[in-house]
Every structure is written in structure tokens, then in C-alpha cells.
């Protein structure tokens, strides 16, 4: 999995490429942790995400908390969106 971080003032965009599972999720956790405190808006581009497990989902939830709800998920494939639905919180998130 690779993560591209793109920060523009208070808004940041993370682009995830590959599998986000139990083994790789700490990398995403570290990437979010590494964001400057001034960043108040986070967008995660999932167009290249092939797989997500509950470990990944948990990180999304904690990112949502950290940004006080200012988290946007974009370019979800139907397969990934299906996992969000199964976890039962697709409606709580801002998915575009």
C-alpha cells in the first residue's frame, strides 16, 4: 500500500493505493498522525484502493473524530462502498 499526502493550508488529501488491511493500516494511521494540527479538513481519495478490512475502517472512524466530522471519502469503488455498508456506517460518513 502506498499513501500520497497532499496538504494545502488547512485542507489535506490522502490518496491510498492498494490493500488497506490489518497489516497495512498502521501506515495510514501514521500518515494521519503526521498531519499538521492546522489541517482541519481531510479528504481521502479511494480510487486506487482495492481492499479494506475492519482495521482500515477503524482508522476512518478515528480520522472522522479527529477532523470533527470534516472527513470526505471520494472515488469509492462499489466493492469498497459495499464494505462500508456492511460495517453499517456509510450513512454517517461524507462519501462523494
Amino acid at each position, binding site marked *: 500500500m502506498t499513501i500520497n499526502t497532499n496538504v494545502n493550508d488547512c485542507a489535506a488529501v490522502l490518496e491510498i493505493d492498494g490493500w488497506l488491511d*490489518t497489516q497495512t493500516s498502521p501506515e495510514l494511521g501514521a500518515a494521519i498522525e503526521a498531519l499538521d494540527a492546522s489541517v482541519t479538513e481531510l479528504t481521502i481519495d479511494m480510487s486506487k484502493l482495492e481492499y479494506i*478490512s475492519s482495521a482500515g475502517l477503524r482508522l476512518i472512524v478515528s480520522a472522522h473524530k479527529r477532523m470533527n466530522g470534516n472527513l470526505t471519502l471520494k472515488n469509492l469503488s462499489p466493492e469498497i462502498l459495499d*464494505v462500508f455498508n456492511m460495517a453499517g456506517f456509510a450513512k454517517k460518513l461524507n462519501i462523494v
Partner: protein
Amino acid sequence: MKSSILKQTVIIFCLAVLIDSVAAVIFCFAYNNRLTGDIAGQLARAGAASAAHIVENTDYGELTQSETSDVYLNTRDCLKEICGELGLKYLYVYEVSPGKDSIRYIISVASEEDSDKRVAEERGLGAVVSRALKEQELYALEGVEPEKAYVEKNEYGNVYTWTCPVIKDGAVIALVGSDYSARMMFLQEVHRTLAVILPMIAVLIFAIFMALVAIRKKILFPINVLSQRMNGFITDEGVALEPLDIHPDNEIGEMADSFDKMCEDIKSYLENIENLTAERARASAELDVARRIQNGIVPEKTEISRGSYNVSVRAKAARDVGGDFYDCLEFEDGRLCVVIGDVSGKGIAAAMFMVMTRTLLNDRLRGGYSPAAALNSVNEVLCQSNPEGMFATVFAAVLNSENGELCFANAGHTKPVITGGNARFLEVDSGISIGVFENSDIKDECIKLNKGESIILYSDGVTDMVNVDKEFFGADRLFESVRAADSARNAIKSLGKAAFEFAAGAEQFDDYTVLALNYTGAETMLRLSPTKDSLPELRKSVLDIAGANQRGRKIYLACEEVFVNIADYSEASLVEIEFEKKNDTLKITFSDNGVPFDPVSADTGHKRFCELDSGGMGLNIIKQIAENISYRRYGGKNILTLVFVLGDE
């Protein structure tokens, strides 16, 4: 409709009578003709001679003087009387002219009144007729009496004429002619003929009638009765089989007796057939039930497919029921037991012995006996109750599906084939058939099957199949046909194709039974330490088996959640993961030796969204992806079984 014998006989008889009658008439008529001719001649001659005698004793001068003289009239009366008495037609006296070229009548009389008057006028005294003299007249003039009557045809009809001279003083002074009617003569002939023929015909007809009556009574009637009996032999069964009441003492009687005997024979024959048919129907029904029972015990086809092995069997009895059998037992602990056997003989007897043998073996093997122990034990039981001295050859094997160890024992059965890269006949002690000797002393042997190898068990009915040239299929052809098979089903198919193509067109006499066990090995059994580092290995296995597609990734998602749960919470030291692919489902079993935890009944309920970062989503996801989840605690292990549906989503 055929013409009846009676009619034909009547026609033949009529023809015979007709021909007979015609012939009789012809002969009779010919004979009478001669006879009548002679008589007519004699009468004519007598008439002429009498007349001549009268004229000779008459005063000739006075006679020729006048037609009215007493002498003339008396003489004429005399002549007429003679004429009538003798049945002559005409009688006449005449003189011949000296030139012999004419004649002069003196007296002419006729027997019939009309004719008499006519001849008295036309040929009375002095009537002259010019004509040449006839032969008999010339003879008569010489004083010679002719030897026969002459047939003449003149204006007075056809007549027999006799000419006689009148001699006075040694000289012929006149001639007398007497005519006998030819018609009269013919009538007499007819009369005489009929007098003979008619009675003869009457007698003949009577005789024929009697003959016909006899034929009708003695021949036609019995034949009719026989014919009706034969006609209604089946339809009027009850009547037709009664003895006939006809006993004429002739050939017909013999025929009737023969017919009676034939009826008797047929009656008993029919009864025999009825009994036989009923017997056969009963036997057939029983055999049918037996076949169904055998089919229940030894199905013609069995297919088993598990994670680490697959089994395929084909069984085909040569007759309705056979002596071959097989058995497949799957044990809870993953062991698989396969048995193949062949009982001596065929048919019901072999089938009964087979059922006993198979049932006993099944019982021992279920009870945990090793193949050899089971065979030895069954042998003991069979020996105690085997009055017919039957026996069975059996090969039994138990496969450890986890490591491919195959332990087997042979009781005189054909040597199995091991397929794969090192294809060979299995080296096994031939052992001894069970059911014969009490101390069979059969021993277990073990080998290890490599992944992909199969063991092919078969009855000798396979190798003993014959082709049209009476050649055996043989173990070598069998070996070649299965050696490269990559699954149990393919081995069976390949062998079946080879064997039945070889034997096409030839009748087979033995049961055909083949059992193939293919060990696919434990490649679908993962042993992982419960750390996150094991995840790539799990991922590879799942995607290999379920497919590296959306469906495969979703199944892996469930597996990852399960595995991570175990890794995080169970404190287990080992996780075993077994995959079982069956048709379009994939069964994945996780076994861990951790603390008891039942995720199926665990509450995965309503966590608030803000708490989800601490976990609890995994179980939810698993339950939504898996078709079925079951948990049991067994042997100190948590055993969680997930079933997924494969195929496109």
C-alpha cells in the same frame, strides 16, 4: 367359402352317370341296330315268301284279269292281313317287262288304311312304272332268293325291302316285294335301348344316393364336428377340451381319437405353461426387489468430494444381482475408509453372502478396527456360518486425509493401482480370501500417498472383460488407462471408456466394479501461528482457492476478520485452517487451541458509531459475507466453520 366335399362328390358322381349313360346308349343302340335290322329282314322275308306262296296257289290268270274279281279281292285281303300281322309297311306283287326296263303292278297293299287306299289307286292292277331293275330283283328273276334285305329310299320313305320270286311251273312269273319301315325300325331300336338304359340309370342313381348318405354320415359329419372343435379350441376352451363323441370304426374314428389325445396333451401342456409362467413372474418380482435392495446397498454410482480427497465409484452387476460390493466410510476425524470386495459366484446366493460380508465389515470398520483387524474378525464370523463354502476377496484401506497415510489390508483381492508420476501396482501381500480358513492372519500395511496420487480398486470382473476375439481386458490395459488420471472421476471415466470400448459387442459375464480414491492432499490445510505476519499466507491461500476476484476478496475479508480476532483475543498458539471446496460452495474451518469463544452467539449488536474505532465491526462483516457460520468446541479447540457461496456476485 370352400366347396363342400358332398357337393364335389355329387358333381363327380353326376358326371360319371352321364358318361356311363352315354356310353351305354351308344353300345346298346349299336347292338339293337343290328338286331333290329335282322328282325326287319326276317319279317320282310317272311312277308314276301308268304305272299309269293299265296300268289303261286292262286289262279294267276284270273288274278291278273280284274281288280274286282273275287280272286283278286280275296288275294288282296290275304296279303293285307299278312302285311298287318308282320308289321310290314307295303307288300306288292308285280311283273317285270321282258326288256327289264319297267314293271307292272298286280297287287299293292299297305298296313295303314290311308296308305292302303293310296297304293290301291296308284299301284293297282296294271300300273306301270318305268325304272331300272335293282340287284335283288335281278337275282329274284333268276329264281334265287336274295340273302339280305336292301335299304331303299323312294317316295314312300326309307324302307327295308325284300324281293321274292313267284314261281309257277318252274318259271318266275312275277316278283313280290315287301317293305319294312326304317322309321318303325328306328322307333323299335329306341324303345329297346330305353328299356335297358332307364332301369340301369335308376339303379345307378339310387346307388349313388346311398353312397352319398353314407359319406355324409360317416365322414362329413365327424369332420365337421372336428373342424368346429379345432376352430373354437381357444375361444370355447371348456367345450373344446371335452373328449369327442365320435367313434366310427374307420380312419375318421382314428382321427377323432388322435384329436382327443391331442386335446389332452394340449390341456396338460397349457396347465404346465400356466404354472411355469406364474412361477417365473413370482421369481421375477422377487428378483426385482432383490435388485432394488442391492442397489440400495451397492449403488451403481458414488461420488464424494472433500477438501483433501475425492472418491468415485462405478458398479454394474452382470446379472440382476451380483457378488461385487464396495463401501465408503467417512469418519468424523477426517479418516476415510474404502472397501471393495468380490464374492465367489453370482446371482442371489452371491448377493446374500455379499450383504452379510459387507454389513459385518462395515460394522467392524465403524467400530474403529484397522482394515486387517476388521477382515480377520469378519472372517471368523463367516467361517462359523458358511455351509455353502462361499468366500469373498476383499481389499480394505483407511486414508488419513491430513497426511495421506494409507493403511490397507488385502484378503485375496486384485492388486490396486497407484496412479501419478510413480504409477505402479500397489505392493501388497495377497492375503487369503475370507470365509474359508479360520486363521486368516491378514496383516495391515501402510504407505503414504503423495498429493495428486490415486489408488484404483477394481474387481476381477474388470480385468476379465472379454472382447469379440475372446481376449481379456487384463490388468495392463487397466493400468495404462488410469495411470495418468488426475482425479477419481477422471480415472473412472478413462477406465470405463477403455474397458467398454475394448469389450464392445461381446457379452460380459462378471460384475464390473471400480473404486477410485484420489488424494489431493493437505494443500488446503493451513497451519498458521496466530500473528498478523501470517496474514499474507492466508490471503494467498484464500485467493488461490476462491479466486483473485471481487468475490475472493470478500471471502478473504471475512477470513481476515476471523483470523485477526483469533490473533488478538484467543491466546492460541496455533490456528489450523481447512478449506473444502464442493460444487459452488467453499467451506473454511478455523480451529484454534485458544480460550473458548463463540463468535456466533456473541453480541455484535448496536455499538455507537463513535465507539467503532475500538473494534466490533469484524463479526458484523463476517456474518454478512458468510452464507453460514457454525461454532463448536471440540477436543480443546474452537472450531469455527464458515460456508461461502462461490460464483459471480
